[in-house]
């Protein structure tokens, strides 16, 4: 196209009506002409400055274009250098404005890490522009884009049927693609899709109506983006206000700061505070300019209540008549984003709104094949997998179904070690089980049970490689305890695997479950007043931490039986290393499965240097020092 022949739209002039904001995501690959389409939108809206335009003209020539012909995709090329360096770009953000609206584009690269990237970009988008090449029609990737957009709650889908010039502006071709995609969208529960025939380089039906498609009487892409209505639904929903921060500058002011996730609020409204369930009345809506008469979804305000109610960060102030749900067990769709796989039973942190709570995932129902929507059986989720599972939290939280409200139904999953964001989830509904099983209070407690034995319960957790000497040392320690007349029990890895855990193998997921069960058993035994010795390889920090957190403070003693691999392998009392080296056993710790050494064990025993007797002596000595055992 000729730079002189068409002029870009005049820059936005000030207009009377305030501008609104639309956030949308663009899905498609470079081959579909996505970069060119976005570049064209920026150009047609007057966002491209003269110096950038001169650079573009020069770059276009360099890229082999004819004099005066612009390659709009080059406007977005700021990321090519990083791409070459192998830096992960999950979402690139673009901005442009017309007199009616400002736009934020979440542009997700189409190739690797696609699911993770698109989920991230879609999470804040109001609309999605899905590109197809008119020559190729609806491809598996088109379905994938539609599926993720629908999953993340985007209700406005635009199908840009691009490269129409290359199919001679064939109306039948366009209609066939539109109908095929519309029927797929209905399966996803999306009724309204808008299909637009476009040719991005020449701008046909991008910002200007195309003379080549007299048979098309719908909007141009920019018309559609400028007018699509996105706010109504959330503002009409019941009031939700996740409390971010308690504002208490002095004794006479106590406000709750946050952003309305849904609905509207006015002073005098009766509300319910969750998860406590307390009722209250909104007194004021405070902002710096003065009090407001009302506030709606999307506004950040500070509320004060007429009553003194105990509220902290993570609570949700909600409509009295239609309150949010409260639970600690949910069914949820989880999108895995971590490099390490999701392990059922492993403790993670969950952040839902402003609430951060410990918990775990279990009962992986299935994995979803994103191309076919088929349900596949799965034991774990790996990077970019999507699955449906149970979320079990340590505490009850207020929530809504994600489909009803993103901010109170979407959560992220955080690895407790290293703090990476390893997943995202969408809550569907609460599971009843938690509500129906209450903790049964018993008359006798741990203290009284321990007192009758004349001892203090504790859990001695021996961790280390196979062959390091854990069982031998633990056995010696137990003999000494017995000689002192104390009541103990030794849980040995091999023995437990013969009974309680005989259904488990040695995959990462099974190892996590193995430790979770034995940690729970150790806790019950400590509750019975016993001194519990656990001799398990327990290779992962996360599960040892889980075990530690199950016990009372000071009750858990981590004993790291530290033998270098060469020493342990040299001993090889059960001949296992030999088999592992020969490939007869898989997932063997130290060979083809990792061992994560403890960072701060209570006791660190150099098993290459110390004899088992010395090591046992050190454990007993430690117990005396800490007052867990009486004097000699």
């Amino acid at each position, binding site marked *: 196209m000729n730079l002189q022949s068409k002029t870009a739209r005049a*820059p936005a*002039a*000030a207009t009377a009506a*305030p501008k*609104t*904001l639309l956030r949308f995501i663009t899905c498609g690959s470079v081959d579909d002409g996505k970069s060119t389409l976005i570049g064209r939108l920026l150009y047609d809206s007057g966002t491209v*400055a*003269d*110096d*950038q*335009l001169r650079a573009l003209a020069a770059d276009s020539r360099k890229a082999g274009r004819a004099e005066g012909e612009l390659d709009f995709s080059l406007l*977005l*090329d*700021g*990321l090519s*250098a*990083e791409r070459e360096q192998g*830096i*992960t770009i*999950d979402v*690139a*953000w*673009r*901005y442009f*404005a017309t007199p009616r609206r*400002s736009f934020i584009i979440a542009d997700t690269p189409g190739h690797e890490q696609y699911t993770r990237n698109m*989920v*991230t970009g879609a*999470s*804040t988008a109001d609309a999605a522009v899905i590109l197809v090449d008119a020559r190729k029609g609806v491809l598996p990737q088109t379905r994938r884009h539609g599926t993720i957009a629908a999953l993340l709650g985007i209700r406005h889908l635009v199908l840009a049927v691009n490269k129409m010039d290359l199919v001679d502006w064939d109306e039948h071709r366009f209609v066939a693609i539109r109908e095929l995609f519309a029927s797929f969208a209905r399966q996803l529960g999306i009724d309204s899709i808008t299909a637009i025939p476009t040719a991005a380089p020449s701008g046909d039906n991008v910002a200007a109506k195309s003379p080549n498609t007299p048979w098309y009487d719908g909007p141009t892409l920019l018309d559609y983006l400028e007018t699509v209505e996105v*706010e109504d639904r959330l503002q009409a929903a019941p009031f939700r206000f996740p409390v*971010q*921060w308690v*504002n*208490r*500058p002095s004794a006479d*002011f106590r406000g709750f*700061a*946050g*952003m309305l996730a849904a609905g509207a609020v006015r002073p005098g409204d009766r509300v319910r505070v969750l998860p406590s369930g307390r009722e209250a009345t909104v007194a004021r809506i*405070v902002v*710096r300019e003065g009090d407001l008469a009302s506030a*709606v979804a*999307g*506004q*950040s305000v*500070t509320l004060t209540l007429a009553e003194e109610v105990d509220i902290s*960060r993570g609570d949700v102030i909600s409509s009295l008549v239609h309150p949010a749900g409260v639970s600690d067990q949910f069914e949820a769709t989880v999108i895995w*984003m971590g490099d390490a796989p999701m392990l059922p039973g492993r403790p993670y*942190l969950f*952040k839902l709104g*402003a609430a951060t709570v410990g918990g775990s995932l279990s009962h992986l129902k299935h994995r979803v094949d994103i191309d076919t929507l088929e349900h596949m059986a799965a034991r774990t989720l790996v990077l970019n997998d999507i699955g449906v599972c149970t979320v079990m939290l340590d505490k009850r939280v207020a929530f809504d179904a994600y489909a009803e409200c993103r901010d109170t139904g*979407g959560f*992220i999953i*955080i690895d407790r070690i*290293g*703090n*990476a*964001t390893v997943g*995202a989830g969408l809550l569907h509904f609460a599971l009843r089980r938690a509500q129906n099983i209450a903790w049964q209070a018993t008359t006798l407690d741990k203290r009284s049970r321990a007192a009758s034995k004349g001892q203090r319960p504790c859990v001695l957790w021996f961790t280390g490689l196979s062959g390091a000497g854990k069982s031998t040392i633990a056995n010696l320690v137990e003999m000494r305890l017995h000689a002192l007349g104390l009541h103990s029990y030794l849980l040995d890895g091999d023995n437990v695997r013969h009974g309680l855990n005989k259904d488990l193998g040695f995959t990462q997921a099974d190892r996590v479950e193995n430790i979770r069960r034995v940690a729970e058993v150790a806790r019950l035994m400590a509750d019975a007043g016993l001194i519990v010795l656990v001799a398990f390889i327990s290779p992962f920090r996360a599960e040892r931490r889980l075990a530690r957190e199950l016990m009372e403070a000071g009750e858990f003693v981590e004993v790291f039986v530290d033998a270098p691999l060469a020493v342990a392998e040299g001993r090889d009392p059960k001949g296992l290393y030999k088999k592992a080296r020969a490939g007869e056993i898989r997932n063997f710790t130290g060979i083809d499965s990792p061992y994560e050494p403890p960072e701060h064990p209570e006791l660190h025993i150099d098993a290459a240097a110390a004899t088992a007797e010395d090591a046992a002596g050190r454990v007993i000595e430690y117990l005396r020092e800490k007052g867990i055992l009486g004097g000699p």
Partner: protein
Amino acid sequence: MTALSHLQRLEAESIHILREVAAEAKKPVMMYSIGKDSAAMLRLALKAFHPAKPPFPLLHVDTTWKFREMIAFRDATARELGLELIVHTNQEGLRQGIGPLSHGSEIHTDVMKTQALKQALDAHRFDLVIGGARRDEEKSRAKERIFSFRTATHHWNPKDQRPELWRTYNLRIDPGESVRVFPLSNWTELDVWRYIKAENIPVVPLYFAKERPVVERSGQFIMIDDERLVLAKGEKARKLKVRFRTLGCYPLTGAIESEADTLDAIIDELERSRTSERTGRVIDHDGAASMERKKQEGYF
């Protein structure tokens, strides 16, 4: 139905981010660089925590080469608002006489800005630093996160940044690590000016056109702000009606010829303006991908 305006939405989002910071960071600080973005960001902080004061101090890394009007504006702002202002200068650099005129923009920026910032962060043990960068400033910033994680040695590992979903940010860090957060990520230059206008926010007078003494150097109009700028042979001081689109160290900041002496005129000029914002920054021209490299080194 109340349709929120685009500025209302941007404001609400930035306030939300600042409150997450206050709730989760142990020792946050807000970078205050005195420019228009800092002015808007400071207003957002006042709003986010009203009636309380922002629960963090302001930090200005003073290279000693800022425009005099900037320093006067900085001190008056902190005083009027009653906010704690920490001013840090790299004393070692000062002793060595490092400056943009004698050492060039690259060394000056590294020693007096990047190193100075690290010194200040280490000395005060800040775990979270709020900055005013926007994604639209430069092509390479388009993929920036709102929360950017740094190792204990202030290094930015582009491969190890966290996905940001919804408004649910993961701010958890280990001791020694730190976070940089950019609440204005989604604002454009015009958004900032429209907000300044709508909110009646005071800004440094250098943004408004006025006759100022300048000298032309490498195609840029450099203002002669004090006696340290000595004219080279053949250079001539001129009085021109100019204003600044961005503010920094005066020998590194190019002025533009302009008649815009009110906020309306500035917005009007920008709407018609056909050049991008960072053309007036000498440091961006130091080499291809220079911003990217500076960031990995710890520049904001």
